[in-house]
């Protein structure tokens, strides 16, 4: 019953969020601000994480496949596909759910408990639309760029790691990267990351928007936003993979 209640309330919130905005110019300005705050603010940490992740995946794959019957080219191939298919989209989204999800829920929750949202409602502003819609559009538009950067940095991380181990040469790694490349896998990753962006912003906004109480509840809403976003991302990942790759 409680789940149905939340689904119904989420649907009702999204109906308000996706309503026609009162002022398109304001929406555009707010969306650009959110792009800066949400996406550009987290790009550096994503780059750091993906660089080391790419390096570690390459080293581990190289060590595990150090067999005279397996070509070293496979290491570059495996690293590329791991990064393109999963790490750049799913892992990046899980990280962003942690960074952005709690940020969104706390920001909106604070606005709720300090009556800023009530103030907008009283003025006749559709507060859900004004506060949430720019965040959804901003991350939806920025996510493909973040994922492309994550892919690139991850592969560079793998490339850098070839200088630290004896089992793999730079030439083998580069040959592996080009082996059996399919652009469809990149599209698949970009499509699913855009859906994950919607999950992160919508779920986190929902948890922040209905906070009641004080600072403690805002903190709890932030935690709930991250947990539910991650669970839904992983479930959606399975569904999209079944749909697009099998």
């Amino acid at each position, binding site marked *: 019953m409680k789940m149905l209640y939340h689904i119904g309330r989420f649907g009702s919130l999204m109906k308000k969020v996706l309503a026609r905005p*009162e*002022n398109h110019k*304001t929406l555009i300005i707010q969306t650009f601000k959110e792009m800066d705050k949400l996406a550009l603010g987290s790009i550096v940490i994503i780059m750091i994480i993906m660089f080391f992740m790419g390096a570690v995946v390459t080293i581990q794959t190289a060590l595990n496949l150090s067999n005279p019957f397996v070509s070293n080219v496979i290491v570059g191939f495996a690293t590329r596909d791991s990064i393109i298919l999963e790490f750049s989209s799913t892992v990046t989204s899980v990280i962003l759910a942690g960074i952005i999800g709690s940020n969104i829920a706390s920001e909106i929750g*604070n*606005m709720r408990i*300090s*009556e*800023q949202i*009530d*103030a907008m*409602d*009283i*003025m*006749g*502003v*559709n507060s859900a639309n*004004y506060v949430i819609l720019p965040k959804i559009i901003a991350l939806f538009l920025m996510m493909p760029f973040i994922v492309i950067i994550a892919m690139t940095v991850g592969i560079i991380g793998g490339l850098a790691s070839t200088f630290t181990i004896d089992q793999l040469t730079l030439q083998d790694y580069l040959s592996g990267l080009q082996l059996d490349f399919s652009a469809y896998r990149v599209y698949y990753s970009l499509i699913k990351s855009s859906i994950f962006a919607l999950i992160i912003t919508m779920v986190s906004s929902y948890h922040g928007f209905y906070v009641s109480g004080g600072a403690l509840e805002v903190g709890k809403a932030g935690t709930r936003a991250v947990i539910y976003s991650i669970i839904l991302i992983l479930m959606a990942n399975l569904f999209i993979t079944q749909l697009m790759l099998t």
Partner: protein
Amino acid sequence: MIEIRNLNKRFANKSVLNDVNFTIEQGKTNLVIGQSGSGKSVFLKAVVGLHPVDSGEILYDGRDLTKLKRKELQDLRKEIGMVFQGGALFNSSTVEENVRFPLDMFTKLSKVEKQKRVDFCLEHVNIEKSNHLFPSEISGGMQKRVAIARAIALNPKYLFCDEPNSGLDPKTSIVIDQLIQNLTKEFNITTLVITHDMNSVMEIGENIMFVFQGQNWWVGDRNQIFNTENEELNGFVFASELFQSVRKAKN
């Protein structure tokens, strides 16, 4: 004018507002007073439509808020200005942006016209040279004045203030009270102030409703308060020795 008729509101099994009737008169500072937990803030939030009511009518110049459709309610709200207890200023916006917010949302004024209106509103609440400061950089009294400036930006017909003096020193409280009264007179606004500050009652109370246990226990003006024989109201108003001595002196 706002007429409230037979207003009832319950939370779970607890009745918070019980058959409340009150007329909020235009051009006057109407006050709702009562102890903490008596239902004042619920009453205000019900009147502005933030809390749905169980039964009753809230007539804004004949338009029943409880029966308005979403779009009609949004339109009505553009005629309402509200000052919240904590100010409810947008933290990430400057003083000027806060006041300009309703103008950006609902008007097609040019940049220059908007700036003129913002300056006019800030001048009316005696705020100068703070346009580019953030709410966290100004005092509580200034935050309340900025909130009032934002509330009057769209020339509202109705102004609601939820405990505008809470957390302010007595001198600043008087400034805020006088500001609210002056704006009410100057723009002929229908103003409702929720308070438990007896200084405000004595300063600006022209039409006062005393709420007790969710009911409108007493209605009158600030002069009638001193002569009332209503036991509960007397207990609330003359709780302090200061007001007891004022009554003695008056009598």
